[in-house]
């Protein structure tokens, strides 16, 4: 502020006004440029939304945004479902899986994170390094043996192979995110509690958990969205259509439509499957964006 005034005093009276004008022009250009970029980035989603109102015949003939003869028939067809399974069933399965993933991930990741961040025990260094290592491990390396194990246990075509790993904190992303969050918390409170005779379980439950709520919410949202989107694990483990979550249900539409059959229903099913995530995003975007930002900076 002060530097502008000094500069203004030192120069002829026109200069500041011209500078302000230049600044305004820059801001307008900035705003227009970003708006154009926004339209490009969001165009696929806008196209998807409007395409759900296109009759089948317009796919392939009308590549534009707006339907020539808008209809809501696609939604009716999608509600009926595919392969003898109604759409609500895919939704229910996805919902069960996603909620289980949220509960399991938050619980097990918070426990592990507390051990890594606040307990001094033998082996801490090795296990922490191992945890960071799994952050970089491609999931495809373990799918074959994992499949063999779950198959031996007779768990194929149940939800167990999809849910159990979530309760065992296998995603290092979440553990690491919570570890970083706990490390930021001042230790005064746990030290005071310890002097008063509180054990680790007490400190974890009554002091740490309430403090790290924002991190837990971030984890919960990501766990939900990732499970909702997950394609590979249900593709591997679920074989009967009534167990399919949405992504595998969508695959049925995609296969059926590649013969040129029902593009309208496929596109509409895709859109309907995205709605919960888009709602999540609109409601929780602050947690999502901040969660990603902190995660990155602490790396």
């Amino acid at each position, binding site marked *: 502020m002060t530097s502008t005034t000094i500069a203004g005093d030192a120069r002829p009276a026109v200069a500041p006004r011209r500078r302000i004008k230049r600044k305004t022009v820059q801001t307008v250009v900035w705003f227009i440029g*970003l708006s154009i970029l926004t339209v490009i980035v969001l165009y696929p989603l806008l*196209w998807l939304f409007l395409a759900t109102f296109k009759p089948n015949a317009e796919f*392939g003939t009308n*590549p534009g945004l707006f339907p020539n003869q808008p209809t809501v028939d696609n939604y009716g067809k999608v509600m009926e479902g595919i392969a003898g399974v109604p759409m609500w069933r895919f939704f229910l399965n996805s919902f069960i899986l996603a909620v289980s993933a949220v509960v399991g991930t938050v619980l097990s990741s918070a426990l592990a994170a507390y051990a890594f961040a606040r*307990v001094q025990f033998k082996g801490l260094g090795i296990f922490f390094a191992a945890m960071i290592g799994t952050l970089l*491990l491609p999931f495809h390396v373990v799918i074959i043996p994992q499949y063999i194990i779950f198959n031996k246990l007779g768990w194929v075509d149940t939800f167990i192979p999809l849910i159990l790993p979530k309760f065992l904190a296998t995603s290092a992303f979440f553990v690491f995110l919570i570890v970083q969050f706990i490390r930021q918390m001042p230790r005064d409170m746990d030290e005071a509690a310890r002097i008063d005779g509180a054990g680790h379980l007490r400190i974890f439950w009554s002091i740490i958990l309430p403090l790290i709520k924002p991190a837990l919410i971030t984890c919960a949202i990501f766990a939900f969205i990732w499970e909702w989107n997950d394609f590979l694990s249900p593709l591997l483990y679920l074989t009967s259509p009534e167990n399919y979550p949405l992504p595998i249900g969508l695959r049925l539409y995609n296969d059926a439509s*590649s013969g040129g059959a029902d593009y309208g229903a496929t596109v509409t099913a895709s859109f309907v499957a995205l709605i919960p995530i888009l709602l999540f995003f609109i409601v929780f975007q602050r947690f999502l*964006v901040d969660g990603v930002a902190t995660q990155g900076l602490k790396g």
Partner: protein
Amino acid sequence: MSTTATRVIVTEDRSSAHLLRKSRREVDPVRPGQRARVRRETAAGYAFLTPWLIGFLGLTLVPMVYSLYLSFTRYNIFAPPKWIGLDNYIRLFTKDPVFLQSSEITLIYVFVGTPITLAAALGTAMLLNYRDKGSGFFRSAFYAPSLIGASVSIAIVWRAMFATDGPVDSGLQVFGIDLGGWIGNPSMVLPMMILLHVWTFGSTMVIFLAGLKQIPKELYEAAEMDGAGAWRRFRAVTIPMLSPVMFFNLLLGLIGAFQVFASAYIISNGSGGPAGMTNFITVYLYKRGFSDGQMGYAAAMAWVLLIVVALLAFILFRTQKSWVHYAGDDK
């Protein structure tokens, strides 16, 4: 200088270690049972760690070792594994042109797609950093695709958008550009997959933006006083100050890109086509292991992937000293 996050961690760790030492010193004379205390701490540590430990051993470490063993066998899940030594690996590199093509397109996807995504992310982050007011909306709009980019829904949308005479194809034809379609065109389908990857630049952008906000304004002011232009300020202030964030994004971006699966699977209907141009290593591994029942061969493929990723991480960490600048150690 002390404002960057890395610095914060270092100071925080140091102060907590100091606290710990202090508390031990205070406790020691009162309670001679120091060893009992250590034992109690260790018991508590492992109690909290139990779920993670079971998962790490049972779902990561043991499966990794088991998959290494399987990679030296012929195995189809029905008959017991049969030891064949290095045959799988020899077959991969000398007798399987599909694997070689699969590796080639995966490497192209990773090493072309990731730098473009990082550049797009850094560019938009700098644009957003220009002004705080009003940038929140744009930040959210750009971030949204990264949440759904790997979903089946978006793969289906991409298929429709890039279909022959679809929105993108006919849109380009208006400008007189005829690329011969994308989806069914072997030379355009990989660029199309890379475009889908670049479209999810938002999460990387958010991390860059948080990093940019940590750079002290005085550094730019000082550089400007010394007569540095915009490009010079970018090279001499932004790049070095942002290099830890850049390192993080590069590492996780490269490793994440190797794991592209759902979109390629859906766009090609599980075939990896046209002409094998979406047959990424993950798609090929899935086909061999689970459609053809060649689990030993697929395990060998998985280990090649693991070794490549580990090697990449190793190289990045080793070269880190020469280009990543951590505030606080100005050497």
